[in-house]
């Protein structure tokens, strides 16, 4: 806060002690402006995190009450096969689904921005529309499509005469979920890319045209470099989204109860630990570890992204 408040007295006669007093007062004024934010920040941001950390250091039992256990919950977590199975699953999901989704979004954004597409406004809306559908509704809808007894999958199987499409089978469930997530978020990421493309000054295109660059050269030479920041952001959002995977598997669980376990993703694991198992302390530990891992990975991606930008 370097803004100085008008202090006419100080301008007229600036004796040193008085000036410091004025500065001190203006600092207090600054604090007053920041205070509302600070209070809310402490209350809804710092306090819950601190409380979760506090929780993770204790263990409350159904019989025997609450006891301080130090880092025992963390030690247990690092040897917890169920947690790591869920973690490995979201990492696999991240590595495959995110590139596909961002690739599709990028192509869509470039196509809409190319000015060669008829009714680009229509396509923009249609591709974005799934994002406006509440996730729960979207998953239920896909659940009906996937249904292999009475759903669309069943109809296709009937028509083909064999069980080709089995979205709820163990080998396909992650693909099925990836398909839903891609459908939901391609439009959102496309919009991030598209708005970044719209900020490119048109004189760059004119210069490129004068230099004889074709449309593909414009894409690789101007558009993609300009999109780098947006791609980094979209990647970070997608990493966070993948690590927080919850809605889709949790709702599909009623349709594939044995395939989607209670520890299918780390978030589902944390949820079930606290709400079915009353293991609030251990659940807080899961949340903290996932939060730290997410933050570290997102930070590494951001560092890599910005290093390229400097180069």
């Amino acid at each position: 806060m370097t803004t100085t408040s008008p202090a006419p007295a100080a301008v007229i006669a600036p004796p040193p002690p008085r000036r410091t007093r004025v500065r001190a007062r203006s600092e207090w004024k600054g604090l007053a402006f920041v205070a509302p934010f600070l209070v809310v920040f402490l209350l809804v941001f710092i306090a819950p995190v601190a409380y979760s950390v506090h929780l993770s250091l204790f263990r409350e039992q159904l019989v025997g009450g609450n006891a301080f256990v130090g880092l025992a919950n963390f030690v247990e977590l690092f040897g917890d096969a169920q947690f790591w199975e869920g973690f490995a699953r979201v990492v696999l999901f991240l590595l495959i689904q995110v590139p596909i989704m961002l690739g599709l979004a990028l192509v869509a954004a470039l196509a809409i921005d190319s000015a060669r597409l008829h009714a680009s406004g229509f396509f923009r809306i249609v591709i974005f529309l799934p994002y406006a559908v509440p996730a729960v509704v979207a998953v239920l809808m896909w659940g009906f499509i996937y249904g292999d007894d009475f759903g669309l999958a069943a109809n296709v199987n009937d028509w083909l005469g064999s069980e080709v499409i089995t979205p709820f089978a163990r080998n396909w469930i992650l693909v099925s979920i990836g398909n839903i997530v891609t459908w939901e978020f391609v439009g959102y990421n496309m919009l991030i890319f598209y708005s970044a493309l719209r900020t490119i000054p048109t004189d760059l295109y004119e210069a490129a045209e004068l230099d004889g660059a074709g449309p593909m050269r414009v894409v690789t030479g101007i558009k993609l470099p300009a999109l780098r920041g947006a791609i980094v952001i979209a990647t970070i959002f997608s990493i966070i989204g993948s690590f927080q995977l919850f809605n889709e598997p949790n709702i599909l669980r009623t349709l594939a109860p044995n395939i989607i376990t209670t520890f299918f993703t780390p978030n589902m694991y944390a949820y079930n630990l606290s709400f079915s198992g009353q293991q609030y302390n251990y659940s807080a530990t899961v949340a903290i570890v996932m939060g730290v891992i997410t933050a570290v990975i997102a930070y590494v991606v951001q560092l890599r992204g910005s290093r390229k930008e400097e180069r």
Partner: protein
Amino acid sequence: MTIARTAARRTLAVAATAALAVGALAACSTGADATGGGSPDDLDAALEAGGELTYWSWTPSAEAQVAAFEEAYPNVDVELVNAGTNTEEYTKLQNAIKAGSGAPDVVQIEYYAMPQFALADALVDLGEYGLDELEDQYSASTWGSVNVDGKLVGLPQDSGPMALFYNKTVFDQYGIAVPTTWDEYVDAARRLHAADPTKYITSDTGDAGFATSMIWQAGGRPFEIDGTDVTVSFQDEGTEKWTGVWNQLVEEDLLSTTPGWSDEWFKGLADGSIASLPIGAWMPGVLESSVADAAGDWRVAPLPTYDGTAVTAEHGGGGQSVVKQSENPALAAAFLRWLNSDPASIDVFLESGGFPSTTADLEDPEFVGLESEYFGGQKINEVLTQASKDVASGWSYLPYQVYANSIFGDTVGQSYANKADLNEGLADWQSQLVEYGNEQGFTVGE
């Protein structure tokens, strides 16, 4: 660069929000306040004085019952809240108990979940208000379910002695006789599926409530509880009798994999592709309301047995309890007494298709002799009330059964998914239940 910096800050914000979510749900813990003792006179006095109550229930009869109660006792104002069905409600109740406030005065709890809330010392001992004198009014198995560790923690409402519901049209079409033993049942499953591969004898994708009831019927007693000493063992003869039969259905792919209570399940019950259901006696109401198209197709028979001796088990069903957080436990207990023992209330309950736990109704000739139109004029209650007399005794649920059921799919469900030996899944379930119990301070043996 500014974009990147904002992104980093957002990343942190989101990471912290994840932690926040957990922090918020683990509200501070306080023990439930112990309430003072009371007496039957207190209940009448409380009804006279009146007051306000909150009642959580998802039963279809709750609304009409509350209306009838308020008409009879205009001084009392009961707010009915549907806080979700079973586990959804238990989660909310558990959170309210942990938070120390926000729980209702009276709450619906299924029998299998009562020990868990009783253990948390969240439920009022109704014996303090003399409600233990009502024992004679209820069937022995339901009364046993609401008594936990010598305390009366609830009053029974409905009951679910198991019977075999079968689609007579389908059975007749394929010339299948109604099975009386489980061997005949497996045989019927094979013949039906061979005759029409789209049809299955029943659907089962692994359901903890069903499995435990089947083990109960077979004579297995996997859970033994003595205070905080618990034994979990699926290696007994009874359990193996059940897996011996059910393994054949699982391994030979004779079970429909449509999950219970899904839309597809109801369609399967209507179109005959799911031809029978070994299930609790509360099923007629569900069939009538949700599978109306199949009116006239279904019939009820006694549950098949292993050796011809009539025996069955309770499946589902539950009652209501008074929560210790209640500011007016006497009034809450008085409402509960009316709800589950007053004829005016039970009439409403029966009209909505419920199956009672009260012996007067189970023996009432009018109830027993009722010809059900949906079941083609069959006197279904003759079969079902007999079943309630044939329930095997000595069963108990774990003091953490809600959690146990939640991980059934992770363990036994894997046997179903792989069409493999159920005993392996049960062994896995057992080891996780032992581990959880010991972590939670119980002394769990196998």
